[in-house]
């Protein structure tokens, strides 16, 4: 087990190593031969240099833990609490002083497909389903469903002014690619990070997916895919449940020693490169070569990373491993920290993957539903932030808490919801960041007084991507892929207001 490569300490990233030495176990420079020859043979001389695996400027963060709550967290009952909802509960929006908030122009602007996809705007205001209070020095207002995260208030940067372009759960994909689900697969933020930077470790995948991801309806594997960047940059799903260890993690033949297998894999790497000379643009071949290197290392690294027995009882308790409600997600958060320690670049942590729309989708009984789900995640995420901080890792680790959209200020009366829940709300919602060079205890942007539209410092989801890339030392506009035209909206704008 290698110790994590200190940030750029030896000056050679894995990617450079790979291109220089041919990604081999033995360092035979066949890889370079492959790619040079391939390029020559194909007479392909594009004016393009792939990212060299180095940050383009001094980075603030080394790793990202990207927590995604599937189904749509109510911004109103988490980090963008609106007391006005209690005041006008039961009234129609147009019967309140805030009647101007239902702004059709903005709705049309947000949802380019409104022409074909209609969704009612529920106008009967629903009171908040939980209390709220201020926390910390910063006086951040957080709902009572999230007391533990409230206790981290002074480390949080809350952005209350996101909007998105899909009023259905395809927005889960949009949140990760910036594109509508109808546009198919596009590179996700995790894949851009790994494409731009490569890995800090040879032993674990650089882009890991934990938890049950979005279902096929809403992006499926695309929500952690790499699309045209090639499969080597897509997220690798890992099971953190110790009762279901990774399949085939050990050779079925117990007499196969690591040395013997390494010898085999070494030959394999050389042979793959040789026969790939005719196919220099084959991303699948590159991905497969890489997958074998990783697979070899993972045989020891995975049991080590997932083995929580070495963690102290106090740590386990902090993450809530001793309680049924927090055990699963607590374990996933703890594993995420261990991965950061071992040099994993991007950890995408899904919560609420239950097939279909996702657990957070609370059209009915939002009170019961959200309070239960908040109980599942609040303590573990807070523990993660505190634990990273006490270990001095929070400065280098950017934690992001996101969801595909917020929930309507009005009560949902669709399909048997009977006014007990809230509908999808793409026009204004909140994401929370911590660490990785963001300011603590700050609120950025705002929705109107009913929490309907993002009105101040509006941010499209790709602004979050730009911010993540910027903290990692990458300029999204300099991240290109040959033969691919990126749209302006894909790049996003860095949310400078929350940077330290």
């Amino acid at each position, binding site marked *: 087990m290698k110790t994590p490569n200190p940030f750029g300490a030896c000056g050679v990233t894995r990617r450079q190593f790979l291109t220089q030495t041919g990604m081999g176990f033995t360092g035979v420079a066949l890889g370079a031969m492959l790619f040079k020859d391939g390029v020559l043979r*194909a*007479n*392909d001389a*594009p004016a393009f240099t792939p990212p060299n695996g180095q940050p383009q400027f001094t980075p603030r963060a080394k790793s990202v833990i990207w927590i995604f709550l599937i189904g749509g967290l109510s911004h109103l009952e988490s980090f963008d609490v609106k007391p006005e909802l209690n005041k006008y509960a039961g009234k129609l929006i147009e019967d309140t002083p805030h009647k101007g908030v239902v702004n059709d122009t903005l709705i049309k602007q947000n949802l380019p497909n409104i*022409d*074909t*996809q*209609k969704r009612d705007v529920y106008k009967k205001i629903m009171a908040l389903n939980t209390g709220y209070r201020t926390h910390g020095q910063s006086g951040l207002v957080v709902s009572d469903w999230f007391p533990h995260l409230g206790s981290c208030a002074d480390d949080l940067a809350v952005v209350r002014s996101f909007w998105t372009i899909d009023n259905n759960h395809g927005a889960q994909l949009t949140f990760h690619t910036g594109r509508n689900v*109808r546009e198919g697969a596009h590179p996700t933020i995790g894949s851009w990070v790994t494409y731009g930077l490569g890995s800090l470790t040879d032993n674990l*995948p650089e882009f890991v997916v934990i938890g049950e991801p979005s279902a*096929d309806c809403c992006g*499926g*594997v695309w929500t952690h895919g790499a699309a*045209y960047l090639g*499969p*080597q940059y897509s997220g*690798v*799903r890992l099971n953190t449940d110790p009762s279901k260890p*990774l*399949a*085939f*993690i050990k*050779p*079925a*033949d*117990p*007499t196969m*020693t690591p*040395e*013997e297998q390494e*010898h*085999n*894999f070494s*030959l*394999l790497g*050389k*042979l*793959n490169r*040789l*026969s*790939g000379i005719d*196919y*220099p*643009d084959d991303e*699948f*071949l590159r*991905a*497969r*070569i890489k*997958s*074998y290197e*990783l*697979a*070899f290392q*993972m*045989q020891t690294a995975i049991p080590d990373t997932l083995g929580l027995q070495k963690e102290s009882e106090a740590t386990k308790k902090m993450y809530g491993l001793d309680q049924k409600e927090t055990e699963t997600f607590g374990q996933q958060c703890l594993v995420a920290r261990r991965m950061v320690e071992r040099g994993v670049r991007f950890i995408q942590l899904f919560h609420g993957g239950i097939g279909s729309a996702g657990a957070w989708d609370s059209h009915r009984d939002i009170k019961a539903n959200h309070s239960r789900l908040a109980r599942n995640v609040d303590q573990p995420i807070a523990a993660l932030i505190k634990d990273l901080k006490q270990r001095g890792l929070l400065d280098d680790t950017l934690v992001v808490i996101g969801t595909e959209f917020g929930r309507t200020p009005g009560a949902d009366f*669709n*399909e*048997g919801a009977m006014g007990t829940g809230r509908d999808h709300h793409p026009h204004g919602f909140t994401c929370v960041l911590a660490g990785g060079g963001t300011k603590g205890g700050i609120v950025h942007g705002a929705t109107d007084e009913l929490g309907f539209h993002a009105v101040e410092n509006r941010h499209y989801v790709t602004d979050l991507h730009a911010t993540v890339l910027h903290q990692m030392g990458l300029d999204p506009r300099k991240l290109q892929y040959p033969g*691919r035209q990126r749209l302006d909206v894909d790049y996003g704008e860095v949310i400078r207001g929350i940077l330290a």
Partner: protein
Amino acid sequence: MPASHRKIILPLALLGAFLAFAFVASATPANRVAFVKHYDRFLPKSLANCTTCHLPSDKKNPESLEEFPHNPFGDRLRKLGEEAGKAGKKLDIPHRLAEIAKEDSDGDGVDNETELLLGHNPGNAKDSPSKKELADGKKKIAEWTKALASYRWLPFETVKRPPVPAIRHSSFVIRNPIDSFIAAEHQARKLTPRPEASKEVLLRRVYLDLIGLSPTPEQMSAFLADKSADAYEKAVDHLLDSPRYGERWARHWMDVWRYSDWTGYQNIPRDSKPHIWRWRDWIIESLNADKGYDRMLLEMLAADELAPTDESALRATGFLVRNFNSLSRERWLENTIGHTFQAFQGVTMNCAKCHDHMYDPISQREYYEVRSIFEGHQVRTDRVPGQVDTDKTGDGLVRIYDATLAPKTYVLARGDERKPLTNEVMQPNVPRIFGAKYEAKPVTLPLLAVRPDKRDFVVKDDLAAAEHSLADAREFLADLKEGTSTNSAKPLTGKAATRAKAAAAKLPPALKPLPTAKTVAEGERNVALAEARVNSFKTTLAAEKLETKKNSPEWKKAAEEAVVAQRKAAVLEAKLTLEEAEVATKVAQAKADKDAQGGDKGITAKSATALTTAKKTLTTAEKAMAKADKDLTAPVTTAYAPNKFEAFPPTSTGRRLALAQWFASKDNPLTARVAVNHIWAHHFGRGLVPTLNEFGRNGQPPSHPQLLDWLAAEFMARDWKMKDIHRLIVTSSTYRMASTPDAASAKLDRDNVYLWRMNSRRMEAEAVRDNVLHVSGSLDLAMGGPDIDNKLGLTSKRRSVYLRIAPEKEVEFIKIFDGPNPVECYSRPVTVMPHQALAMANSELTFTQADVLAETLTAKSGNDDAKFITAAYERVLARKPTKEEAKLCADFLKQQIAKPAKRPGAPGTAGILPASSTTTNAAAMSKPSAPAEAINTRASRPRSDAQRARENLVMVLFNHNDFVTIR
């Protein structure tokens, strides 16, 4: 207007003319459909209704569209039609729309078409686009003009065969029309097609595509040696004739048709049904026989109506059986409708369950009309020869039938099953957008379909089973007498006993299990009982046979014999019941007495109730006994009770047959397009329409619309024969191109949408597993039969298509290579993950097969490493190694022999050939065995370091990128 419509309209009309207006329009939408079709995706949603041509009615209670006057635009359209009519011509709506496109019907200064495209009413002068809208809309109008000028993709219009483009000055050999369409796009886009692939690459490609197995070295060298002009075509014919073709392509279609073995909770099927593998076998056999796709559709949806007694065809209805859901009929029907339409029509009907379809012109009402086609259908399991038990422990033919002739389907408000709109029963129909005439005629079913138990083999099997039971009882009695009884089976208790009892109740008396016997007396009782049962069954059968000659002396004699036998049997049955009741009462009494002493009121009351019940049962049994005794001495009559059998409705609604006939009709716009697109996708790795299950507006348009239409037309013209389409595709120059890159073309078409080269693809999961076994010579080519336990995935030698697959019953190895999701799998994602590397490098499947192959190759090549290396390459990768590769491999072998890795318990020996006999090892490897066993055999098997190195080399080749890749 039908009265049923009027009933709704009248109260609605009171709410205002406009509401009623919308309703009437959707009731007669023929013109609207034409309108929507013409403008397709260019039509703004706000104009997809009747206000575009009509004004609100001035009548208080409008009853038909006639009462809604036209606006100037609508009026112009109508007049144009009338004028044409007067001239004896017919001018359809799209042509009329084209004719008045540049006119300005409402006189607001903007022409009709511009107004329409920009979302303004062309018949209302007050509704005109602003200057800004006109400026912004230029792009949309340009796109529309371009779309009009180019070949129009109209998936909801009947297929018309487009002309094949004439291609001049092409370096690309035009072998068939596919090449012409592809070359036309090459030329238009300045793409340079790649040259033909090498013979080795091509043969491996076509083998893997058509039969899913790579060519053997013998097949490869025969092909390379064949210098005739049609060597390749001959190879293709050979592959299409192979039974392996059906197995390969069955798996593709099983994805689309969502094959799943049953799954459930505590062994009770909840999802899909036991024995559904018969449908899988039907798919394989049908493909191999090149049954027309139209006929396959008909059989899958309605074999029970089309061929009610054809047991082979009935298997096909597994397509519908698969949707069985024991927990929710609602979900069952939803899946049936949704997946039937996605699979055969590429349309997402389910969107219309709760509301009108958001993208395609399908109304919610139409969804429920489709639902009524399926409302009455049910699943049953018919007997198969030699098997009395149709449950999951036995065998049977699981199939579809109509259980109800006039099922009631209602629209569900917002799709909520708790809110049916019961004022109107939906009549079966298909969505209007498809422009079909749907007409279902009830089908009268033959006797044997209605009463399947009357089939000869069922009667014979029942009799044999009864006699078998009697023989068992006799043998057991003999054992009891000799004191050698080995019957130690514990009686069932609790739920299991209840379930067994319920199962036995369904059986004819002759097949009921006998009670346990512990004493000679009980043994004698069982023999007597079994004899009486057999006798009663036989005599009744004899009497039933003579029923055609009722009242003849022979019949009378047989009937009387049956009555006597039945009465004798009844006495013994009654006696048994009485004995059991007596025992039960005693037990209940004892428990009641004991509990009464305990003093717990609840328990006492419970056991007292149990005692009362037991006593009641006893009284009933006593009465039955008395009656049976009395009957025995009564005068003999001819009134025997007929043998029990199951009976089903004598007619079927014919609704599914009508649906299937419409699907299978050449007028259906989508069936052929969707099918050939699937076929294309499996040959090229991408469909001409990339969204294989979505041809509606929410899908993506095709890259080559003419080619797809041409293929669809050709498919139908060739009687829907799939092998013809495969042959056309794989013999085209398009298919034969190399998959190597070209910088200039890549720059223009990075994703190879216009096929300037062949796509490299990764083998599907099943092909990876099959080929590990195949190249090692271990693949068991036995065909058909029950699903193989998924736990045997790594040890079974059968093809993967036969392995069990259902939610939570999957083979991990298959799953890791993006195997099919049994719930829904219209296309599979392709990933590259370290998990796949681990599965290939560490699984017992690859270890054991590497050993088998290394041994076979060593037997042929002896000590010659170079020979071994060449043979291994030829076998595993279907090519010879390059010089460089051969050298790397030779060095590898030498190094491993010189420096063997330390291995526990595996003594190395000098020389290549191991001390152990090669045959024993091969034999040990060829049978499926428990996982641990196979691996232990490997670990402890003595072989030389040299042989171990060779095994490692084969293992490396299994893991080679070229092994899993189709170039």
